[in-house]
């Protein structure tokens, strides 16, 4: 092999070796005051339910890729469906029943990716990402719009919003009095994550 070929080979290895270096993981711990809100409606009223003050010391790991903007995430939020509060005992009980809380007491949001890493130079901004939501024994992947707010150094608030349908999770929206009172299939989900960087 000539010196020129060897040099070319070395350049090739160096370039692709650099390209294929593993993404840098950044660990974020889910801190207090996280919440999940759902908003829906029936043909007679609207309802807003929330799991406030979700706190489990879970960790989200962001894998920043140098060349690809897509940021892989591992980590999840696991919420108790029985902690939903609709500010009305009747609505609260009905939502829990509708979401099959007895059989499936957990609502899990698995974070998959973000289309880019939040820019800490900006105070706030928007990113998109994918999550898996597991509800009533059915898991489905959704694209989520996030708003992020940089809250001091190493602290980030992520607010994810997404409209889902009861039917996405094979849940029949409740109907009462022979269908005279019907719950609409759409449900707006908003989750607030307070994250603190660990490393």
């Amino acid at each position: 092999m000539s010196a020129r070929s060897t040099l070319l080979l070395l350049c090739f290895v160096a370039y692709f070796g650099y390209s294929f270096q593993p993404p840098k993981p950044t660990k974020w711990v889910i801190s207090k005051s996280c919440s999940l809100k759902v908003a829906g409606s029936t043909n007679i009223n609207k309802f807003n339910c929330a799991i406030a003050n979700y706190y489990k010391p879970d960790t989200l790991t962001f894998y920043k890729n140098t060349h690809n903007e897509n940021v892989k995430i591992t980590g999840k939020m696991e919420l108790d469906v029985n902690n939903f509060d609709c500010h009305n005992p009747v609505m609260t009980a009905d939502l829990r029943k509708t979401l099959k809380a007895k059989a499936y007491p957990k609502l899990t949001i698995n974070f998959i990716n973000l289309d880019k890493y939040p820019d800490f130079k900006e105070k706030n901004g928007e990113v998109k990402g994918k999550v898996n939501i597991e509800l009533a024994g059915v898991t489905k992947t959704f694209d989520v719009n996030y708003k992020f707010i940089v809250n001091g150094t190493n602290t980030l608030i992520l607010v994810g919003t997404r409209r889902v349908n009861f039917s996405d999770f094979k849940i029949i929206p409740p109907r009462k009095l022979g269908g005279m009172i019907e719950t609409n299939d759409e449900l707006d989900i908003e989750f607030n994550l307070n994250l603190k960087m660990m490393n």
Partner: protein
Amino acid sequence: MKKIAISGLIAGLILFAISYGGLYLAVRFFPNLFIEYNSPLFNSDGSRDLMFYMHPFIISFALSWFWARCKSVFKGHMLFRGLEFGFVYALVALLPVMWITFSSLDITITIVLSWFFYGLMQAILAGLIFAKINP
């Protein structure tokens, strides 16, 4: 027997139209009265819708039989006979049922009163129909 069945069927059809027409309009124009129905106490999967919509026929056939047995007790003008029949049904059947319902279920007095009033109106209407077609 045939008279009872025909009176029951006619009353059932009229009650069906008026009861569910009225209920539909009430839900549309007074939605706040129905918020409490968003409760797990009430069937929500649609599996009993047919039974729900059969109610006017069940009550009409039962009242038609009751009318045939007791119509001689109700005297006077057709209007008074129908009204008295309705009030008798409300006193004998509805009031005790509503009493035990309110005492045992976690529902408001408004709901129980609305059910009582709804049943009373159905019975009066059925009584008027029976007084007219099966005097």
